[in-house]
Structures are given as structure tokens and as C-alpha cells.
């Protein structure tokens, strides 16, 4: 980029709005796991929508690539720059309005997800989006990736939690769609175009989010079952008899529970016998009638009686509840102790989950004998984190050489079962090839047309997604 563009942008944001110390630049340039390291000419941190707009106008005029960045916790390399500028939203972190009558919260897109949750809590409401990265990811990053998490089964992805959006378009103009309306059929619903667009169509600057009543009762159970088939059956029972109170339904296979309870200090296996599959189930209700535990007990005892499940333990205190949760949440960390792993974030229709796991387990074991299947995740959404750890006796690199073969095999099975090769984490740099491979030409062409129309000079996060 030219020196004059550099100076112009620097003048807009002032000296505190640019990151010039080498040491401070690191966290913007490196992907947090160290998979990628980008480079760029300038890292800029504007603190108003108008500044974002002015910067984008300059970049558009001079064809300077912009990599929008929020918390940089993304898992597919979407925030890794190659030249141009990083435009970080991390200074735009103001919560502008919490409206209890409308049940909405308006904030700038650089607000940390955790702070949105806390602000909702302070008025006895919740913002239900919840991810393990919630203390570092920013709401704009969540919107740009259409983040999911553990409460999707009840509340949906963030796409379902937004009523209004403001976006700075690639030409620098500001589209203000900040309307807190439940009903608004006035043409194309533009906000959905930007949600999940991974920074390729514009920069999300403000949003209006939906709030929900705060649960007054929580009932949590750790359940053991014989097979995936039974777990799906249990899911249908809960959907039917617990209805909208079903808030969490998280699957864990025996190996994932085993590694989490063996290698993470403080975790304890909740049963005294071995079981092959588990789910963490949570019901919540804003009603104060104290009947939720009874609902949980009656569904589970029915499920034991008809052979759907083998056993279950119920949390009788907040501590027991967090013990159950900790097992689920520490699986990824525990996996780090088991050598190299190849991670897949896939989804299939619920009715195909069982087939997927059976076929994928078999196919991957054929490619790498003694491969270790660590599968867990949001089974209530048909979304499995299908992770493969290396066999104990294999060289790390020999195993990683099999990566492409394994991933391709898994994606072929996913495709056959009408699923998605990327359920939550997006495309970014990591899954571009898969997009053209597993989605139809028409679909990809349509995406390219939209991109070209909104961003003819290709300055918004070029090289990502498409």
C-alpha cells in the first residue's frame, strides 16, 4: 500500500488506533493454534462506524485488501491477512442499549460475547449463544461466522438471535438495518446475507440481539446408552416430552469421556461401570414451579424401563452440574495429550447420524488401523465433532500424512448422507476446496455473483471462502 494511504488511515484513527509495535502485532497476525501466520502493511483499530466507513472508502479507491478481524478465535483461518490491512473491531466494544420491553440488546460489533451475556444477566435475561471461546470472541466475529455452540438445539444459531444489523459495505457506504422488529417483510432480508459471510461482503459494525427470559430452574443429567441409535431415540423422547425446555443435548463417545476423565485433573468418571456412549442433557425453564427435575426423572425412568438408556446420574447441586459440564468441555484439551489429531466438524440430518458414525468409524479404521475415534458434540443438531487421534504406536507425521485421505473419505460419507462438511466453523482458508467440490456449480456461482456485485474490486477478505 502507498505511504499516502497509510498516512490517511493513520490520520483518521489517530496514533492509538494503529498497532505499530512488533510485539503487539503478533496476536493479530498469528492464528491462535499457530496453523497460519499472515502479514500485512497496517493493523488499524477504528473506534466508530464513521471511521470504519472512511477507511473502507480509501481501501476501495486504492484496491487495498481488508481482513476484518474480531477476537481471532476462528478455526478456519478466516482472519489471516495476506497483505493490505487488518481492520480490527476490538475497540468498538460499547453496549449501546438494553431494552427490557423489547427484549433486545444493541451493541457495537466489537463487544466480547461474555460481556453481552453479562449485560443480559444484569436485567434478568439471557443471551443464549454460548461457546468455549466466549471470553475472547467478539459478537461481530460470531455474526460473521454464524456461530452455533451448545444451545442451538433450543435457541438456534446466532442467525436466529439477531433482529437488526449495520454493515459498512465494500464501497464504504453504511447500510443501517438496525430495526428491532419481529415482523418486517419489506423486501430481501439483507441481514442474513451478511451473517455467515466471513467478512467477504462487508464489515458488521453494530447489531440488535434478542434476549430471552432467564432460566429459574435447571436440571442436568449425564446419561449412558448402548448405541447411537438409542441416543437418537432418547433425543426424540426429550423433544417430545420436554419440549422447549430441552436446552442442551451433547453427545460423547466412551473414548472422549475416558480421555477427559483420565487426563484432566479434577474430572471424575460419573459411573461405576463402563458404558459405550453418553449424553449430557440439560433442561431449563423460566417457570418457578420446581417441576423440571420431575420431568427429567420421568423421561429418564421411562427410557430406562424401555431399554433406551442404560443408566443416568442427575446433578443435585451446582457443583455436580459443573462437574458434568467440565467433562464435556475438556475433551478438546484432553485430546491434545493423545498425540496428533485430525478434526472434522460435520453435520448430517438427525436421522443419518447413526449411519454416519458407523460408516465413518469403519472406513477410517480401514485407512489407519487402530485409529482412535473421539466423537462428541451437538448431536441434537446433527452436528458431530468427529475427531481422529493417532494410534498410540504410530509416528505423528506418518499419521498426519494420511490427513487428506481421511478427510476426503469422511466428507464423501457426509455428502452421501446429505450432510455438511462444515457445520459450525465455516470455510475461511481451510475448506475452500471442499466448497467447490461438495456444493453444486449453481450454488457456488450464485455466491460468486453476489460477491462480485457487492465487492467488485475484491477488497473484502480476498482469498477467503470463495
Amino acid at each position: 500500500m502507498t505511504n499516502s494511504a497509510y498516512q490517511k488511515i493513520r490520520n483518521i484513527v489517530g496514533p492509538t488506533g494503529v498497532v505499530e509495535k512488533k510485539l503487539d502485532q503478533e496476536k493479530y497476525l498469528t492464528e491462535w493454534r499457530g496453523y497460519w501466520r499472515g502479514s500485512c502493511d497496517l493493523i488499524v483499530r477504528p473506534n466508530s462506524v464513521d471511521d470504519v466507513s472512511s477507511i473502507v472508502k480509501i481501501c476501495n479507491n486504492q484496491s487495498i485488501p481488508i481482513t476484518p478481524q474480531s477476537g481471532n478465535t476462528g478455526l478456519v483461518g478466516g482472519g489471516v491477512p495476506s497483505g493490505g490491512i487488518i481492520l480490527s473491531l476490538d475497540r468498538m466494544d460499547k453496549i449501546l442499549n438494553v431494552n427490557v420491553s423489547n427484549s433486545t440488546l444493541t451493541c457495537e460489533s466489537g463487544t466480547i460475547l461474555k460481556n453481552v451475556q453479562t449485560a443480559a444477566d444484569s436485567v434478568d435475561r439471557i443471551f443464549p449463544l454460548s461457546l468455549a471461546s466466549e471470553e475472547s470472541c467478539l459478537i461481530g466475529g460470531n455474526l460473521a461466522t454464524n456461530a452455533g455452540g451448545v444451545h442451538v438445539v433450543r435457541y438456534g444459531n446466532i442467525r436466529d438471535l439477531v433482529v437488526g444489523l449495520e454493515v459498512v459495505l465494500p464501497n464504504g457506504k453504511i447500510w443501517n438495518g438496525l430495526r428491532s422488529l419481529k415482523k418486517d417483510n419489506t423486501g430481501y432480508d439483507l441481514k442474513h446475507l451478511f451473517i455467515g459471510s466471513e467478512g467477504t461482503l462487508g464489515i458488521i459494525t453494530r447489531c440488535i440481539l434478542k434476549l430471552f427470559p432467564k432460566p429459574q430452574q435447571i436440571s442436568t443429567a449425564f446419561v449412558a446408552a448402548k448405541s447411537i441409535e438409542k441416543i437418537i431415540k432418547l433425543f426424540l423422547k426429550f423433544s417430545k416430552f420436554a419440549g422447549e425446555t430441552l436446552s442442551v443435548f451433547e453427545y460423547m463417545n466412551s473414548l472422549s469421556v475416558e480421555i477427559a476423565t483420565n487426563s484432566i485433573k479434577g474430572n471424575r468418571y460419573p459411573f461405576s461401570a463402563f458404558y459405550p456412549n453418553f449424553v449430557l442433557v440439560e433442561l431449563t425453564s423460566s417457570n418457578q414451579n420446581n417441576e423440571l427435575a420431575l420431568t427429567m426423572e420421568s423421561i429418564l425412568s421411562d427410557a430406562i424401563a424401555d431399554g433406551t438408556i442404560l443408566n443416568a446420574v442427575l446433578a443435585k447441586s451446582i457443583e455436580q452440574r459443573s462437574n458434568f459440564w467440565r467433562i464435556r468441555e475438556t475433551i478438546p484439551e484432553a485430546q491434545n495429550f493423545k498425540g496428533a489429531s485430525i478434526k472434522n466438524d460435520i453435520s448430517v440430518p438427525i436421522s443419518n447420524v447413526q449411519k454416519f458414525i458407523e460408516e465413518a468409524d469403519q472406513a477410517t479404521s480401514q485407512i489407519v488401523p487402530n485409529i482412535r475415534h473421539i466423537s462428541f458434540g451437538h448431536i441434537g443438531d446433527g452436528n458431530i465433532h468427529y475427531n481422529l487421534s493417532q494410534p498410540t504406536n504410530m509416528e505423528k507425521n506418518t499419521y498426519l500424512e494420511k490427513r487428506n485421505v481421511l478427510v476426503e473419505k469422511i466428507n464423501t460419507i457426509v455428502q452421501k448422507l446429505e450432510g455438511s462438511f462444515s457445520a459450525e466453523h465455516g470455510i475461511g482458508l481451510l475448506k475452500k476446496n471442499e466448497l467447490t467440490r461438495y456444493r453444486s456449480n449453481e450454488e457456488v456461482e450464485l455466491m460468486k455473483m453476489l460477491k462480485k456485485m457487492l465487492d467488485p474490486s475484491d477488497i473484502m477478505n480476498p482469498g477467503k471462502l470463495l
Partner: protein
Amino acid sequence: MKILVAVKRVVDYNVKVRVNLEGTAVETNNVKMSMNPFDEIAVEEGVRLKESGKCDELVAVSIGTSSSQETIRTALAMGADRGILVETDDPIEPLGVAKLLKVICSREKPDIVIVGKQAIDDDANQTGQMLAALLDWPQGTFASRINIENTKAQVTREVDVGLETIEINLPAVISTDLRLNEPRYASLPNIMKAKKKPIDIIPITELNIDIAPRVKVIKVSEPPKREAGVIVENVKELLEKLRNEAKVIS
């Protein structure tokens, strides 16, 4: 051998408590309540003694409102055989609780009473000791290990200088410390079984015990907010601040 365990319903350990508007007590409306953690340990110990064949009957006793039945059910789901609730809507002080437990002991004739060393709501740490005195039984407090042999109990206690093991004759009162055991979770089959186990409900008035409070609470208040710390540049500045601002050295 018969064992009695006392269980109390308290505000859950992980709830951040708030003082009520009148400043007279902690707010308990719409607050998650659970079994006192030390009592969970007491129940677990009783259940283990049952499983090892040393105890024939395990009875869980609670003194409190009708909701305390839920706490007794949890004890039953962990493995206790039956429950007794002395029902009252008033808060009872440790001396009152000890007197009531004494009456229950005279009816039930247990060989051992296991209680938590303290309840996390009032942190009194008195009930077990008072009960032992009223019954004139030996006591083994703050147990981190219990070994029962015939008519004696060896109790390992955590004391300032390390571990102390004492031997006491039964019947006796034992109070539990944190490291005695790790309580089990209530499994669904056991929760369902527990629903069929009997709970005997005794209205407190029936026992004719003087439970009038001896202690008057004058005021309940939140601890003062801690002020944010400062980072000092060097030792000299630290000493200067300790001397002139904090005035803790001269």
C-alpha cells in the same frame, strides 16, 4: 448396627448470596438450595459402611421446612434406607437442633450419629459437639477417616499439627471433614427407588422441646467491597506506599 445421619438444606455452595432488604438475613427466595456439602459426605460415609456390611440401617434426619424432604430424598437416593423430617418453618439454632436430634436418638437408638462438621450457611460448627454433650456420648470431630471395629470407632482427625487418630466407644457422634470421601452422584434408578422409601414427618410441636433462639442477630451485611489494587513501579515505591498510605510499616 444402626447409623443416623443429619442432613441440612442450605443455599447452594456456588450461589453468590445476597443480604435481604431488611438487612436481617441472607435472601433465600428463588435461590438454588442443596444439601449441605459436609452432610453429603456424612451420607456417603454411612452408605459406604452399609455397603461394607458394617451398618444394617441408615436413617437420614433433617430439621427444617417441608422442602427439606427433597434433601432427605437425595440422601435416600444416595443409599439411606429411610428418612425423618422434624418439620418447622422457623430457623433453629445449633443447640435446638442438638436437642431435637437427642430426642430422635432416644427413639431410634442409633450406634453412631454422623453429622457434617458445620453447615455452610451459618458456619456454626457446634451441633455435633453439643449433641455428644447432651447424650453424654464420646465424639470424634473433623473426621478424615473412620474405621469401625465391633463396639469401637477409630477416627482420624485433621488437626493443626497433622493427623490425629483417636479411638472412641460406641455409641458416639462423629463429624465429617472435607477429605473423608467423595460423595457419589444420585443415579436415576436409585432416585426412583428413593421415591418409595418412607419419610416420617414429625411436627416440631409434637416433640415439646424448648427451641427458643438464644442468639439475637443484630445485623447482616455484605463484606466491604475490595478496592482495585495498583501496580507499583519498584520496591522503593512499594515501601513508600506501605509506610505512608497503608501505614502497615513504620
